C-alpha cells in the first residue's frame, strides 16, 4: 500500500535495525517492526498538483535512478577533497578551531590544486582517458568557474549532479563505474611527486595545524589517526552514493599502514617547497604550539614535578628558543621545518641533564640521599619516578599493541576490476563478515559495552598517562613534589646541586642527514639517558634517534659547538656552563610564579574543555568518566 513511497528508503531503523518502513496517517515514515516514527515524510509527488509536468517528472526520476546506478563522473582530487573535509570535520569535533578548517586548510588545498594544475587554473591537466564523452570539459569548466566564485560561503563545492546532464545513460561506459582519471592518475605528465596521496592528506592537515598554531603536533595527529579518531583507513567508504569506486581507484585510496612520523615530516617539507609558502605566522607565547606550552604539557605527561618548569623556561630563554620573532619559520631562510614536539621534549631532556645528571651515577646518588632525607615524601626521587614510569610505559605499550590488534583494515565496500576477481573476493568477504559478526554477537552479550567495537577504543585525549589517586590512574602524581637536594640556594640564587654536565661531540656533522649517529653512539651513552630517550620516544611514538638528534641540536645552541676534546675550549665551555647555570638560577622566583600561573590557566582551560567535551559526548550518548579531567582533548584558545 504505502510501499511505493517507502521502497526507495533503505535506511535501517535506529531502534531495531530493520528495514521495513510504512507511512503513518500524517505521511511520516515509521518502522513496522518497532513502530518507531522518524522525521522523514513522504515526498509530495502527487501529480495532481502539477498536471502538465507529470510526464516530465517521470522522465527525470528514471534518469536519477539510472544515475544512481552508474554514478556520476568524478575526479580523483574530488575524492581527496571529500576525504580532507571528513578529516577536518573530525579535528574540529575534537576541539580544533574552525578557522583551521574554513580558512587555513581550504586555502592550502586551493593553492595545492592550483600549483599542481589540477584545478583553479586555465590549463587543467587532463590525463588521457579512453572516454570520448563530453564530461571532461564539463567538470573542468565547473572547477574553474568555482574558482571565480570563491567568496561563496559554501567553500567546498557541492555535488555537481545537476551539472552533468546527459551522461548518465551512456551505454558504453564500463560496468564498473569509477573516477574519471583513476586508472591514469599515476601516469600524468609532470611526474608523480606532486600527486595527491593518502599520505599527503596527513601532510596537509599537519601544515594547516601548524599554520593555524593549533596545539596539535604531528605526533598527536598521527596518534589520533592510529586510534581512529581521525579517519584515514577506508575513508573512501564514506563517499556519497554517486561517487562509485573501482579497482584502479583502490590503489590510490586504500591504505594498509599509517605513515611514520619522519616520512610525514619529510613530505611536509617537500610540500612547503612545492607550494612556495611564505613565512609562517609567528607563534606567540600564549599559543599552545609555543615551546613553553608544549614543554609544560610534556612535563605533566611524564609526571615530572612542576618545579622543573621554571628551569625549562630558563633554558629555553638561554637557547633563544622561546623568542617569538627569531623562531618564526620562514621557508626561504630555514632549511628544515621544525619538529615542534621533538624540540620541546629535547629541551626537557637537556634540563633534566642539568639538574639530574643522567650519567648513571649522579642521579642515583641523589635519589638515595632524597629517600634518606627527613622529608622524603615530598622530595622528588628519580628512582621512584623511574619505577613508576617504567611500569606505566610497559602497560601502555601492551594496551597500544592490543588496540593495534583490533583494527578493521579491510573496507566493507568491495573494489575490484574484473568479474572473476570480484566473485572470488565477494565470496571470501561474505565468509569473513559472517565469522566477524558471529564472534561479535558472541562477545557482546553479557559483557555489554566493554566488547570490542570497530570504532576508536579510547576516548580522545591529549594525554596518554593519567597521574593521580583515582581509579584507573597510572600511578601517584609527582607533580607537586619539590626539587630539594637537587637545587641549592647560594646567596639568594638557586643553582643545581649537580655541577657536572656531560655531552657527546657537538660539532655539526655535515656529512650525514641524520646528524645524530644514534645507533653508533648508543652503546656508549649512559643507560639512564637512553632510557629517557626511549620513554619520550614512546610518548611521541617515534624513534629515539630523532629525539637524540634534537637533543644535540639544543645542546649546540646552549653550549656552542666546541667538542670537549680540545683543551683550550674546555675552559670556554666551563665558562659558558657557569654562565648557563647562573642564568638558570637567576630569575627563578619570577619564573616559578609564571610557571604556576600558566599551569593554573591550562588546568582551568582543560576543565572548561571537559565541560564542553562532556556536552558534546552527552549528545552522542557516550559517558564521561569521572577522571576525565586530564583526559580531555585541549582546544586552542580562540582568537588565534
Amino acid at each position, binding site marked *: 500500500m504505502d510501499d511505493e513511497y517507502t521502497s526507495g528508503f533503505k535506511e535501517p531503523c535506529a531502534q531495531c535495525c530493520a528495514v521495513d518502513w510504512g507511512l503513518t496517517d500524517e505521511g511520516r515514515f515509521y518502522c513496522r517492526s518497532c513502530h518507531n516514527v522518524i522525521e522523514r515524510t513522504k515526498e509530495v509527488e502527487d501529480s495532481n498538483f502539477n498536471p502538465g509536468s507529470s510526464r516530465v517528472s517521470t522522465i527525470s526520476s528514471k534518469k536519477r535512478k539510472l544515475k544512481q546506478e552508474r554514478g556520476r563522473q568524478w575526479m580523483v582530487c574530488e575524492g581527496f577533497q571529500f576525504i580532507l573535509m571528513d578529516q577536518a570535520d573530525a579535528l574540529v569535533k575534537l576541539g580544533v578551531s574552525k578557522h583551521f578548517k574554513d580558512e587555513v586548510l581550504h586555502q592550502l588545498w586551493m593553492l595545492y590544486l592550483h600549483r599542481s594544475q589540477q584545478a583553479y587554473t586555465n590549463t587543467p591537466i587532463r590525463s588521457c582517458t579512453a572516454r570520448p564523452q563530453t564530461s571532461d570539459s564539463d567538470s573542468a569548466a565547473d572547477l574553474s568557474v568555482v574558482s571565480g566564485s570563491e567568496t561563496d560561503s559554501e567553500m567546498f563545492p557541492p555535488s555537481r549532479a545537476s551539472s552533468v546532464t546527459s551522461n548518465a545513460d551512456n551505454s558504453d561506459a564500463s560496468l564498473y563505474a569509477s573516477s574519471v582519471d583513476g586508472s591514469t592518475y599515476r601516469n600524468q605528465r609532470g611526474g608523480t611527486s606532486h600527486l595527491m596521496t593518502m599520505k599527503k592528506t596527513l601532510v596537509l592537515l599537519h601544515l594547516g595545524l601548524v599554520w593555524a598554531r593549533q596545539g596539535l603536533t604531528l605526533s598527536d595527529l598521527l596518534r589520533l589517526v592510529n586510534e581512529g579518531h581521525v579517519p584515514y583507513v577506508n575513508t573512501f567508504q564514506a563517499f556519497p552514493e554517486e561517487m562509485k569506486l573501482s579497482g584502479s581507484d583502490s590503489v590510490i585510496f586504500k591504505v594498509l599502514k599509517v605513515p611514520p612520523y619522519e616520512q610525514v615530516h619529510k613530505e611536509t617539507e617537500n610540500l612547503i617547497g612545492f607550494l612556495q609558502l611564505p613565512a609562517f605566522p609567528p607563534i606567540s607565547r600564549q599559543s599552545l604550539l609555543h615551546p613553553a606550552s608544549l614543554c609544560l604539557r610534556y612535563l605533566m605527561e611524564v609526571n615530572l614535578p612542576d618545579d622543573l618548569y621554571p628551569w625549562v623556561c630558563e633554558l629555553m630563554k638561554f637557547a633563544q628558543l622561546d623568542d617569538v620573532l627569531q623562531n618564526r619559520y620562514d621557508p626561504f631562510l630555514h632549511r628544515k621545518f621544525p619538529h615542534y614536539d621533538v624540540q620541546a621534549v629535547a629541551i626537557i631532556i637537556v634540563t633534566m641533564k642539568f639538574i639530574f645528571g643522567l650519567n648513571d651515577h649522579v642521579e642515583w646518588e641523589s635519589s638515595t640521599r632524597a629517600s634518606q632525607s627527613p622529608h622524603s615524601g615530598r622530595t622528588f626521587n628519580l628512582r621512584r619516578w623511574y619505577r613508576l614510569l617504567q611500569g606505566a610505559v610497559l602497560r601502555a605499550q601492551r594496551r597500544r599493541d592490543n588496540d593495534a590488534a*583490533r583494527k*578493521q583494515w*579491510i573496507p566493507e565496500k568491495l573494489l575490484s576490476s574484473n568479474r572473476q576477481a570480484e566473485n572470488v573476493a565477494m565470496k571470501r*568477504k561474505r565468509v569473513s563478515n559472517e*565469522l*566477524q559478526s558471529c564472534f561479535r554477537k558472541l562477545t557482546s552479550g553479557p559483557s555489554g559495552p566493554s566488547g570490542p567495537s570497530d570504532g576508536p577504543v579510547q576516548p580522545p585525549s591529549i594525554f596518554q598517562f593519567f597521574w593521580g589517586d583515582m581509579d584507573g590512574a597510572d600511578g601517584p602524581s609527582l607533580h607537586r613534589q619539590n626539587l630539594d637536594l637537587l637545587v641549592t640556594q647560594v646567596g639568594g640564587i638557586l643553582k643545581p646541586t649537580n655541577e657536572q654536565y656531560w655531552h657527546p661531540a657537538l660539532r655539526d656533522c655535515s656529512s650525514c642527514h641524520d646528524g645524530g649517529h644514534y645507533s653508533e653512539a648508543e652503546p656508549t651513552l649512559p643507560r639512564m639517558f637512553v632510557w629517557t630517550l626511549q620513554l619520550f620516544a614512546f610518548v611521541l*611514538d617515534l624513534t629515539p634517534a630523532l629525539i637524540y638528534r634534537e637533543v644535540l641540536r639544543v645542546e649546540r645552541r646552549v653550549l656552542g659547538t666546541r667538542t670537549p676534546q680540545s683543551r683550550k675550549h674546555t675552559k670556554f665551555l666551563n665558562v659558558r656552563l657557569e654562565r648557563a647555570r647562573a642564568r638558570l638560577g637567576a630569575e627563578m622566583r619570577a619564573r616559578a610564579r609564571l610557571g604556576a600561573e600558566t599551569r593554573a590557566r591550562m588546568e582551568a582551560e582543560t576543565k572548561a574543555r571537559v565541560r564542553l567535551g562532556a556536552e558534546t559526548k552527552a549528545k552522542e550518548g557516550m559517558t564521561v568518566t569521572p577522571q576525565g579531567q586530564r583526559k580531555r582533548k585541549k582546544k586552542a584558545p580562540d582568537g588565534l
Partner: protein
Amino acid sequence: LVCKCKYFTRICLERIREAMLHHRWQEAAEYMVFYPQKLEGSEIEYRQNRELIWRISIELLHHMPNSKLEDYNNIHERMKHLGVKIYLKVSLEQSFHLMLCGQIEEAKQLLAIGESWRYGKESASQHQTAKLIQAYRSLLDYVIWCDKKFTLDDTDDDSVTYQDMHSYFRQASVHLKEIFKNPGVWDPFIVSYVEMLEFYDDHEEALKILNDYAYDDTFPPNPNAHVFLYQYLKRRGASDKKLTKVLKVKQQIQKKGDIKKALGIVMDMLDFACWRKELEVWRSLNDIIGKLNSGLNWKDILSETVEPRKDWWPALHFTSFHAAQDSKENPELMKLKAPVAKIFCPGK
C-alpha cells in the same frame, strides 16, 4: 610502531594464541572479531589462514557459553564452500559435531553428500578423508539400524521396519566391505558389522571378516582383533582347542606390543641423565632385551629404538670416564651396562 596492517595481524594472532593457551576464551573471541580479515588479504595469506581460522573458530565455539548449533553449522557451511582442499575435512568434522549433538540423520546426510562430492583431481590426503567419510557414514547407517532394531520389539507392524533395517544394512555392508580392504584399525566398525551379520545369520561372512582382520599381515598388529575373534567363536560354541589357539596368538601380539612399549619407556628414561645411575632401570632394560631375543623380529624392534640414539648415547653412558667411575663406585652398574654397550658400540 603499530601502524601497519602486517603488524596488526601478527599481534592479533599472538594474542589469540596466548588467550587460548590460558583458556581465556572470551578474550580470544574478542580478537577473533578482527582476525578473519586475513581471508581478504593476498592469495598466500588466504591459503595459510583458511584452515587456521576455521579451527580456531570451532574451538572457540566449543568453549563459549552462548554458542549455538546454528553458529557451528553456519561456520562449517561457509568454510566448506571456500575451497576444494578443505571441503571434505570440514564435512567430516561437521558430521562429528552433529553426531555429538545426537543429530544422527543430519550427520548421515552430510556424509552422504560428502561421499558423492567430486571435484577435480583427488589428492592423497583427500583420498584418505574420503575413505573416512565412507566409513563413518556406514557406521551411522549401523546406528540407525540399531535404533530401528530397538523399535522392532515394541511395534506390531514389523515388516516395514524390517525392510528399512535391511536397506540400511545393505548400504552399510557395501561400503564396509570396501573399507575393510584397507589396512588400518577398524575396531568399532568391525564390531558393528559383525553384529549386523549375526542378526541376519550370515556366519560365513562374519567369520571371514574376523579372520581377515586378525590374520592379515598388512594390517597393523592388533590384539583386539583376536579378542573379537575369540568372543565370536565363543558365542558360536567353537571348540576349546580353537579358542586357545586364538588366545595364544593374541597374547603373543600383545606381549610383543607390550615389550615394545616397555622398551620405549625404558629408553626414554635413560635419555635423561638423572636415571643414569639407577640400577633398576638398567636391569629392566637387560630383561627386556633378553625377552626380545626369544621372540621374532627382535633385531628390527631393537634397531628401531637404538637407531635414533646411536649418535649420542655412547657419549652419554659409555665413555671411558663413565667406565672408570662406575668400576670404582658401582661395579654392579657396570656389569648391567656392559651388554647394552655391546649393542650400541659393537667394536668396543
